[in-house]
């Protein structure tokens, strides 16, 4: 309640000096200008035909399916990992956090090589998997694994931050009232950090959608099986730059929709908007 009262106070003072606007504008232009430049290059009369070609639709469909699967996998693996990192106290916790976040800074191609030597036919687990009759290389599973590898840290990082901000007081109260740890997790912790989990999942989805290097190295490139939208763009560039630009714009549009759907409100703010909804938002 205090937080809400604070927010509703009129913003009389902002701690941002006026001159900050100039570098901020340059920063925004630095990101937006290349996107605008690309949009200007689109061959609009052919746009529809370019993005609805068989190979484009196959790539878009595969990208959406694999990114959704990776996001689910990220949630299944990332939520426990974030909980352990935020709430647990054990030796090597800092080291584990640093290592888990490694895919954030690794070039994706390095991730692809690492995955190849883990799940590949000659890899660490490859022998076992082959005996079990599981072939991962060149399959859609390989794409999902590559995407999960690069996207997982985004979810973990986002959720761990939310968990730390939320604190443990509600959990402690629930526990003193007799709730068992699993009940506390289900009834208190998860509902409390749901906005953080949602934005983490969206980030993971967006990162999966853009995955390129690890997929190319680990999964290969075959229409309908492993050739996701970024790989299709990379290939189309060879023969039909117009198609590559058109598909790039589609990828940007999908990413904008995905990101905008969670960042309409600042993360964590769950209160209903006070201002009347914008015209377009009304039914």
């Amino acid at each position, binding site marked *: 309640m205090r937080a809400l009262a604070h927010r509703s106070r009129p913003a009389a003072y902002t701690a941002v000096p006026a001159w900050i606007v100039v570098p901020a504008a340059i920063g925004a232009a630095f990101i937006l200008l290349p996107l605008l430049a690309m949009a200007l290059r689109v061959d609009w009369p052919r746009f529809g035909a370019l993005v609805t070609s068989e190979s484009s639709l196959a790539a878009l469909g595969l990208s959406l399916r694999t990114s959704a699967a990776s996001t689910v996998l990220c949630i299944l693996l990332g939520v426990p990992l974030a909980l352990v990192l935020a709430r647990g106290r054990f030796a090597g916790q800092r080291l584990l956090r640093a290592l888990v976040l490694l895919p954030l800074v690794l070039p994706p191609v390095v991730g692809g090589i690492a995955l190849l030597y883990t799940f590949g036919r000659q890899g660490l687990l490859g022998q076992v998997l082959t005996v079990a009759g599981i072939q991962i290389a060149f399959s859609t599973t390989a794409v999902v694994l590559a995407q999960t590898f690069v996207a997982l840290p985004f979810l973990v990082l986002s959720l761990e931050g939310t968990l730390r901000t939320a604190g443990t007081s509600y959990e402690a109260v629930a526990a003193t009232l007799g709730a068992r740890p699993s009940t506390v997790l289900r009834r208190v912790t998860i509902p409390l950090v749901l906005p953080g989990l949602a934005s983490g999942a969206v980030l993971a989805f967006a990162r999966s959608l853009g995955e390129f290097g690890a997929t190319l190295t680990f999964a*290969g490139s075959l229409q309908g099986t492993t050739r996701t939208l970024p790989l299709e763009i990379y290939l189309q560039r060879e023969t039909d730059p117009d198609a590559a630009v058109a598909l790039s714009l589609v990828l940007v549009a999908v990413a904008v929709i995905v990101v905008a759907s969670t960042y309409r409100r600042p993360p964590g703010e769950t209160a209903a908007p006070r201002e009347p909804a914008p015209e377009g938002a009304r039914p």
Partner: protein
Amino acid sequence: MITKTTTLLATAVLAAGALAGCGAGTPSAGSTTTAAASTSASTPALSGTLTVFAAASLKATFTELAKEFEAQHPGTKIQLSFAGSSDLVTQITAGAPADVFASADTKNMAKLADASLLDGAAVNFASNRLTIAVPPSNPANIAGLSDLARDGVKVVVCAPQVPCGAAAVTAEKAAGVSITPVSEESSVTDVLGKVVSGEADAGLVYVTDVKGAAGKVTGIPFDAADKAVTTYPIATVAASKNKELAAAFTALVSGDAGRKVLSDAGFGAP
């Protein structure tokens, strides 16, 4: 006005005198002059930095040839940039500062010629042909192109959009074989990588790739490769600021020295 011109003239004369004086004062002046004269007779005094954009498959050979060129012409420096031919074409079209372009196929060179971005005509200097690459243990017992069409054999090829993939399609058609690959890669390097790592049972790559992989893969030649030979052209880029140096390097590549280095690496005659 007149005074200014006179001063300039006087300065010029003085400078010339000073230079001549210096030359005369040097003990080995005579021999130096002769040497300089003979050098300029064979090749005009070459100097400066030359930027060469070359197809990725030329990395080893062009690195060697650039060293040879720099040794032959002290004071010159060759800067090499390797990438897929179509990437390089895109970069040159966008104004990248290339002096010389060597492509892995004639199609990409034609793109620059059509856009009037070349200085003169391109010269074909080498050729390359496809071969089957298998891991040294040859797990799928591949003996020829028809084995690649067998069920359960994991074959990786280049996508038809890139030169090595186009050559693969031509070879398949010529041999009457229909391969169902598990992956169509964007570059021949990626195909080779999948075979080297043992993920694929076989891949269609260039003869030079197998030679460059130095024992990590085994090459299995096939007859239909004759029908899908790729030609490598080289040309000076129109925007080059050092066309003499560019011409000299192109001459080295397409001449006897280049021929030797290239054929050692497995390239055929153009």
